[in-house]
């Protein structure tokens, strides 16, 4: 199997999960249309990069824009790690934001409820 196809197959689940997550959050009105469209654009750009990696390399090589070797197995691992990190950072930042808001609301409500019981 071509390494470019391997790269695409390994990374596709992360990209699909990220895109599904953005659409779900938008439909559930947790994020604005603007934020959703910017995040979707970023992930689609990344997906196009993965899909077009092989033709882009061949085009660059054929036109003497690069003389680098084609994708190695180590490159596949490295790129996958970067995509995975991007996905993880995005998920963590969303969770952190939600947790911070919940904690603040809880602290606020608890303080008010306890003060009225005295």
């Amino acid at each position, binding site marked *: 199997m071509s390494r470019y196809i391997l790269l695409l197959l390994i990374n596709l689940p992360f990209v699909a999960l990220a895109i599904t997550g953005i659409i779900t959050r938008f439909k559930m009105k947790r994020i*604005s249309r603007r*934020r959703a469209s*910017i*995040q979707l654009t970023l992930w689609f750009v990344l997906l196009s990069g993965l899909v077009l990696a092989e033709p882009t390399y061949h085009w660059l090589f054929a036109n003497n824009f690069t003389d680098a070797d084609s994708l190695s197995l180590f490159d596949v691992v490295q790129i996958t790690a970067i995509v995975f990190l991007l996905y993880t950072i995005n998920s963590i930042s969303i969770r952190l934001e939600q947790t911070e808001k919940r904690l*603040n609301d809880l*602290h*606020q409500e608890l*303080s*008010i409820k306890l*003060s009225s019981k005295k």
Partner: protein
Amino acid sequence: MTRQKNRICIVIPAYNESQVIYDVLTNIKKALARDKKHSYEIVVVNDGSADDTSLEAKRAKVTVIDHILNSGAGGATATGLSYAQQHNFDAAATMDADGQHKPEDLVRGVEKLLSSDVDLLIGSRLIDSKGMSRVKVLGNKGLSAITYLIFGINSTDSQSGLRVFSKKALACLEWKARGYEFCSEMLWRASKIGLKIDEYPIYAIYTEYSKSKGQSNWNGLNIVRTLLARRLSEIFR
């Protein structure tokens, strides 16, 4: 037929203010008692103080909300205003606990807000900055200029703690900052949701105590840094 009095909630966020809070509250209560047009409830939000702020405030016979954790001026103000909203007050006002605001200015602000269509009224110390040190004037003007640059909000005193809120503002105004940077962020959020903002001149009293408690210009720098980070993080929202 007697006109029903407007119910006003006075929110005072306090952190380690046991030295002065009793006197400050007593003075406010005296001034508010003279205003027969409205009925007032004073709510002190003790923001996890390490001293006897809560006990001193209770001694002054006002409502005290104790924060279990110290969450900053922004968090304490949010709790107080949430209390006002939950208890269906007609308006609310915030004041500093160090005694730098004159209760008469508060009453004037409440009157001005209730007789207009303004949703958020800011008591500006800088329209007439008499009594303020040059460093304080410079620091506050600088922060107001930075608030304008970052958020596009034009206010002569974006950091003022004396603010009056309409019922509409109580229902829909929210902010994320927990520290002092909430002052600027609140103006931005209010403007974003279409609330009408106005200012009126107030006079600040600077005692040795309030000078020692006030924000340093270094803290001002920290506020700028946090505001910038907040604005950048919300560019894509």
